[in-house]
């Protein structure tokens, strides 16, 4: 097998935060829908350069947590500090501008578009040429299109999906769709990448591939990653620190080994009555 090409030129943007410092700080956040409490008073932080896992049984509030982080839901209580800037509410598309990208539990690709177009769509925000140049397809617009195409081709190489470049993603098998979705998130050049169950529904081989991509993204590009995953083996191997949620509350937080032996966590997973 060929050695993996070096993609170190694809680095995460410099956001002035040193490796190991706090990149994202969520403080005392609560979220409820009507009378249903999804998240109760949770605080957690993500350090620059780490892989942070969020785990917990079904309905523990993991996806809600990601939705709060990238602005899809606005929490009723609490503050979120990202890149040293505090924010309360914002539109999801603004989160992308600040450097947060994500993938979804159920693949959320643009089904009618090709792999290439899907990943290019991830770069929409970075492309600035106005409609006047666009309709001529000359000069700055063409130059911009080609610059971004080069970046996208690097991602396509990195994820080993060259052969499906022109295939409409609706026709791809599930595992490849997940990979394209990762590609689209990478195309946004995020400083924080949120992955919502990146390995759900995959077979062992696909899981191994995906783990390798996640590690490579983290190590070669220096991208900070927060992920939700149910496969405990994967979580314990990949992540630097793990936070465990249950019924919308935080019950443990720490390195994988420590969390694994925490009595509350074991109870939550085995289902001790509350």
């Amino acid at each position, binding site marked *: 097998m060929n050695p993996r090409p070096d993609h170190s030129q694809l680095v995460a943007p410099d956001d002035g935060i040193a490796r190991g410092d706090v990149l994202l700080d969520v403080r005392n956040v609560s979220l409820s829908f009507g009378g249903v409490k999804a998240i109760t008073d949770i605080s957690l932080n993500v350090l620059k350069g780490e892989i942070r896992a969020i785990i917990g049984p079904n309905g523990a509030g993991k996806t809600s947590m990601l939705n709060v982080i990238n602005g899809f839901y606005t929490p009723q209580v609490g503050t979120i500090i990202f890149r040293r800037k505090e924010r309360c509410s914002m*539109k999801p598309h603004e989160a992308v501008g600040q450097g947060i990208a994500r993938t979804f539990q159920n693949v959320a690709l*643009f089904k009618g578009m090709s792999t290439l177009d899907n990943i290019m769509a991830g770069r*929409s925000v970075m492309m600035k040429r106005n*409609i006047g140049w666009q309709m001529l*397809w000359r000069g700055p617009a063409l130059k911009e299109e080609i610059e971004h195409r080069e970046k996208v081709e690097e991602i396509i190489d990195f994820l080993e999906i060259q052969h499906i470049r022109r295939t409409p993603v609706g026709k791809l098998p599930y595992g490849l769709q997940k990979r394209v979705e990762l590609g689209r998130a990478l195309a946004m050049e995020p400083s924080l990448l949120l992955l919502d169950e990146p390995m759900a529904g995959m077979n062992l081989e696909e899981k191994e591939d995906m783990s390798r991509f996640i590690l490579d993204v983290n190590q070669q590009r220096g991208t900070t990653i927060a992920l939700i995953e149910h496969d405990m083996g994967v979580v314990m191997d990949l992540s630097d620190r793990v936070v465990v949620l249950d019924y919308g509350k935080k019950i443990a937080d720490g390195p994988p080994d420590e969390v694994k032996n925490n009595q509350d966590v074991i109870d939550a997973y085995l289902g001790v009555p509350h």
Partner: protein
Amino acid sequence: MFYRTAGQFKTTYQADHALFPVRQDAVLLGIVLILAFVVFPLTASEFAFRALLIPVLIYSLAALGLNVLTGYAGQLSLGTGAFMGVGAYACYKLISIFPEMNIVVALALSGFFSATVGVIFGLPSLRIKGFYLAIATLAAQFFLVWLFQKWAWLYNYNASGAIQVPNIDFFGITVAGPRAPAIVQYYFVLCIVCLLTFFIINITRGRIGRMWKAVRDMDIAAELVGINLMKTKLLAFFVSSYVVGIAGALFVFLWRGAAEANLFDIPLSFRVLFIAIIGGLGSVLGNFLGAILIVALPVVISSVPEAFGLPLSSATVEHLNIMIIGALIIAFLIVEPHGLARFWAVIREKLILWPFPH
């Protein structure tokens, strides 16, 4: 055997981003353009210009405008006819207030009027989705046609309530009005349609086109990759209504010669929608194929039985026409929801492999 893509390698992304990366496609387009610019004008009769060629071009343009909104950005509109009307009335007022204005300038400006109205009626699309939005576009349809009837200033207080196109010169040649020769009008329309089609192709294959398609395919995901839904949808309404408005101005000025408010009513909106559906939503080529079919169908229905010695009354032709169009739409949706354009794509794929089965 003649349609091979093998051996045509691209060494730069620029070459890969050409309008026709495959050489044969470019040749084919060349042939079509030669037909349109040289062969048809030399051979077509006055009837062919007025009954087939000019309406096909104008309907194609209107359907192209609608396709931007419905096929690319996924916002179903049932009010195309009214937006064509805005373009036509705007052009009429511009020409009557500034008789010296160049017709091309007037056309380009009238597009901005319909685009503005389009954006206003597009605002609900930020809150309303799907069927509800489709019905909301009918609000534009009925309100605007009512306005065309009641606002006498729009038709210069004519007793008839209709707008009449005066003779208009374009650099010394009469292009519109009763004195304009059909061949001149044909060339004029052809040039405008080619230019706008070129612009739309470029817009739809670049960043803006991808943003539209992203909103169409999954609006929540589009928002979460950083696409501003409001701007993207309103831009689609703007561009779409701009093109539709120009098509409406051409419809009256270069083809009908006169128009009453009810010309822009529901049936026109539907005819344009059918062209877009039968041609293929989300395709540029499809609009032209669909327009050819819809414009030619009544001509065929009336002339074929006549050739067999069974002339039909004009009312019967019209009824049969509506019935067949309805059946065609259902048939297309069942057999090939992506319309005539997809048929061409399938044929093309077969040609690339021919004479081998795989």
